[in-house]
């Protein structure tokens, strides 16, 4: 087994999808969490001045999507064939599009503006997105988003949809019963439940 080292800040953020993959696979890795000062010093050592980065026996890989795909392939969490792998990426791409919409709300400091942005976001982007994703889930018919067993996208979506179910719009999220059941199903997978219990508790 290669030596894996994941470097990020002390938060879930973009690294949590990667950490969930390691957890589900039951694979040991160094979960290297930097302070802001340490990050400033480390930045120039990264390929693109960004984190997360994954080191595999010392070789560095950047970009969350490249990292999750690489690891999912190594650990059998990338679907059973090229088409399932592509469908996983398609669903992931849909989350990236929504993240771009969410970021202005996330960064807004003025509480009144934040509420306005939240309402607009939920009505115009999040609700249609949840409708589409509930349909992807039910169309697949297995309780997982792709194929008939857990893949990396189930883990990524558990993390991503937590933003809606627990932070931005819990009431809206409850209107999607299949997505609610999905969240419980994935969070209860033994390795995932164990990780969620033991991981550092951070706001994001």
């Amino acid at each position, binding site marked *: 087994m290669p030596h894996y080292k994941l470097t990020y800040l002390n938060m879930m953020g973009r690294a949590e999808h990667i950490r969930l993959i390691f957890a589900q696979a039951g694979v040991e890795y160094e979960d290297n969490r930097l302070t802001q000062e340490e990050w400033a010093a480390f930045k120039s050592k990264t*390929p*693109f*001045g960004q984190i997360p980065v994954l080191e*595999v026996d010392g*070789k560095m*890989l*950047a*970009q969350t*999507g*490249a*990292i999750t*795909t*690489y690891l999912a*392939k*190594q650990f059998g969490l990338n679907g059973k064939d*090229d*088409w399932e*792998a*592509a*469908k*996983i*990426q*398609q669903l*992931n*791409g*849909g989350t*990236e*599009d929504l993240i771009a919409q969410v970021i202005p709300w996330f960064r807004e400091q003025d509480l009144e503006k934040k509420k306005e942005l939240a309402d607009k976001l939920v009505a115009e982007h999040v609700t*249609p997105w949840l409708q*589409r994703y509930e349909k*992807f889930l039910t169309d697949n018919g297995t309780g997982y988003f792709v194929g008939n067993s857990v893949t990396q996208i189930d883990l990524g979506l558990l993390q991503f949809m937590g933003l809606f179910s627990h932070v931005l719009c819990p009431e809206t999220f409850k209107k999607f019963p299949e997505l609610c059941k999905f969240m419980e199903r994935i969070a209860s997978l033994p390795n995932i439940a164990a990780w969620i219990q033991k991981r550092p508790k951070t706001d994001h």
Partner: protein
Amino acid sequence: MPHYKLTYFDIMGLAEPIRLMFAQAGVEYENVMIPDEDDDPTWEKLKPTTPHCQLPILEVDGKVLAQSVAISNYLAKKLGFDGQNEWESAKAQELVQAINDVRQQVRAWRKEEDEKKKAEILKKLEHDVVTPYFDRHEKFLAKNGSGYFVGSHVTQADLHIFNTLQWWQNNHLFTEAFKNHPKIGEFVEKIANLPNIKKWIEKRPKTAV
């Protein structure tokens, strides 16, 4: 060979790296281009039938795949642009995402209408984003040593990076950065002169973006 059908707007945009892959591989596909107008009836009718209400989509023997990154990664594997092993595949994906990050930032310049602000944004982009990007990528090219970004053959990374950089060159953007990074310029030339790429560029519809 499966039947491939790519549907996108009648611009280069997000579909062009995919079209470059088909061209380089010499693989036939149906290149459906629909008018890029907000209220165009073709798009209005098609939109709700697509997985994410967006384009591009790729149909493979009738099965639909959406999201340009998913399509690009799928075709890279099928058409031989995915590197020689898992690490090279990962590195190619990494570089595609990196150029996409930069493209996103350059969009701000494209969207700005005020000419004076536009010039300021461009200058800031050149200094803050493109020059560091070129610095890193010249090093990647030099370290890899083959003239390509990953391994010793063309990968999807080369085609994505070439596509964006050639557009910048054709639109006279970041001329200082290009001047100061000769290996980047050589790379663009190299890909532009691959016979299948050259042929496609000559015959493709000429659009602004």
